[in-house]
C-alpha cells in the first residue's frame, strides 16, 4: 500500500513537472514572439518618425525659400537662412525644437557646385538603440550674388532619427 502511494505521488509530481515545463515553454515562446513583434514595431515607428521629421524640415519657415507674399519654392532652402539658423536652433533646441524633432540629427549638404554643409539640429539620445537615416534632395538658393539674380545649388537634407 505504501509503495502504491509512493508511486502515485511520484506520478503526480511527474505530471505537475511536465505541466509546468509546458507552461514555461509557452511563456518563453510568447515572450520571444512579443519581443520580435516589439522590435519590428519599433523599427516601423522609427521609419515613420524619420519621414515625418524630413517632411517637417522641408516645410520649415526657418529654412524655406520664400518669395515675399507669394507661395514659397518647393524643396528649396535659403542659403542665407541656413548660414545663420543654427544659432536659433541651438538656442531653442530644448524649449522648442525638441518638441518638433525629438531625438534626431538634421543636416544639409551641398553636392554641386560646392561642398558646404550645415548641421542644423543635433540631439541624439544618451543611449542610441537604433537609428534611421533619411535623405531628400533639395535645391539651395543663394540670393546674394554679383549677378543680381539668385544662384541655385544642389544638395540634400539628411535626417537621422534615433530611438
Amino acid at each position, binding site marked *: 500500500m505504501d509503495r502504491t502511494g509512493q508511486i502515485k505521488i511520484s506520478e503526480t509530481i511527474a505530471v505537475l513537472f511536465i505541466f509546468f515545463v509546458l507552461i514555461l515553454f509557452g511563456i518563453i515562446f510568447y515572450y520571444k514572439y512579443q519581443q520580435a513583434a516589439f522590435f519590428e514595431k519599433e523599427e516601423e*515607428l522609427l521609419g*515613420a518618425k524619420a519621414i*515625418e521629421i524630413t*517632411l*517637417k524640415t*522641408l*516645410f520649415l*519657415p*526657418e529654412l*524655406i525659400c*520664400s*518669395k*515675399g*507674399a507669394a*507661395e*514659397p519654392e518647393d524643396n528649396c532652402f*535659403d542659403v*542665407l*537662412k541656413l*548660414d*545663420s*539658423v543654427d*544659432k*536659433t536652433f541651438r*538656442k*531653442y533646441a530644448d524649449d*522648442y525644437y525638441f*518638441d*518638433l524633432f525629438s531625438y534626431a540629427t538634421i543636416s544639409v549638404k551641398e553636392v554641386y557646385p560646392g561642398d558646404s554643409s550645415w548641421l542644423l539640429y543635433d540631439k541624439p539620445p544618451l543611449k542610441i538603440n537604433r537609428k534611421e537615416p533619411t535623405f531628400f534632395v533639395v535645391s539651395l538658393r543663394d*540670393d*546674394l550674388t554679383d549677378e543680381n539674380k539668385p544662384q541655385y545649388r544642389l544638395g540634400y537634407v539628411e535626417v537621422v532619427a534615433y530611438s
Partner: protein
Amino acid sequence: MKKKGQVELTFNWIYVALAGAIILLFFVGIVIRQAKVSEEQLSGEVVRILDSILSGASVSEKTKNSVEAGGLSDYVIYFDCNEGVGEFGLKGKPARMQNSIDPLFAPKEIQSSFILFWSLPYHLPFKVIDFLFVTAPNVKYYLVGNDEEFVNEFLDSTAGLEQEGFNREYVADLNDLKAEGKIKVRVVDVDGLQVPEKGIPAGLNLFSDEDVSAIAFIGGTNLANFYQKEGNLWKKLNKEPVEIISLDEERNAAKYAAIFTESAELYTCNMKKAFDRLEILTEVYGGEEIAQGKIGGKLKQMVDFYKNRPASSECIALLLEYKSNAKDALRALNTGAAGCRLELGFGESPLSCAEIISVANELGKINEDLRINCVQLY
C-alpha cells in the same frame, strides 16, 4: 478498505476540479488582461495614426483633404488646448497626443466617418506657420450677415473642401436657418449684427446646447465673440472680444481659424503657438539679439553684402537707415511677439497684440521696396 477507497476517489475528484478551476481561472485572467491591453494598444495606434495624418496635413501649404475614418468613426475624437499645449485623443480612452508646436483649430469633439483637413499659411508678414483646420461633414457651417465680400471669399475658398464633404451654407437672415439631422451647427455671423441679438432661431431649437455654437465678427473691426447655445439664448464664452491678429489679406488664416474653433480658449491657446514661432522667426531674420537692436541672422548677411557695394546704398537705407527700416521693424515685431505670447499664455484676450499688425504691415512694405533693387528679406 471500501470506505477508504470511496474517500480517496471523492478527494481525487475535488482535487481535479479545484486544480482545473485554478488553471482555467489563470488562463481566463490572461485573456481578459490581454483583451484590455489590446484595446489600449488599438486606441494608442489610432491616435498615433491620427497624429501622422495631422502632421502630414499641417506641413504642406493649402492642402485640403478628407480621410476616411474607418474604425475611428466608432469613437469620439476630442480636441483641447491648455497653456499652449494642444491635446487630442479618443474620448474615454487613455491614449492621447499632446503638441505644443502646431496650431490646430477644430470643434471640441468630432465623430464622423470622414475627417476633413485644411491647412492655411499664417503670414505676419512672412510665413510664420501653417494653421491646420479639422472638421467633419456632420458639422454644418451657416454663414449669416451682409459682409458679401467675406462670404463670397469664404465660399470660394472652401469650394474645394466642399467636394470633400465640407458642409456650409449662406443664409442672409439667421431666422431663415433650417437645420436638421444629426449634425453639429456652427453659425458664423460675418458682421456681428444677428448673434446674439436675434436669439436662437426656431430651426435650431431642437438641437442640444452643445451641438450649436456661433462666432460673431464685429463689423468694421478685427474683433470677434464666441457663443454657445443655452436654451433659447446665446451664451457668450469670452469676457472681452477676441482680437483676430492678422494682416488684411485674402484667406485670412487667423479669421478662418476662429470659424473652425468652438471656444475662445481653444483659439487663443492655439494662437499662442503661432506667436512662439513668430518670436523665433524674427531671430532667424534679425539675429538672436535683435530685441537689443543688434543685428544678426539673414539681415546681417544682407547688410554685410551691400556695405561693400556703394551702388547699393538704397538697400542699406531700407535695411538700416530709413525711418521705416527692416531692423527696427524686426525689433518691434520680436518684442511685440514676445509680449503677445506672454499675454496669450495667461489666457488673456490679446487686445494689446494689435501693435504687431501695424509693424508687420510696415515690414511687408519694406520687403516690397527691397524687391525693386535689392534682395528681399523674406
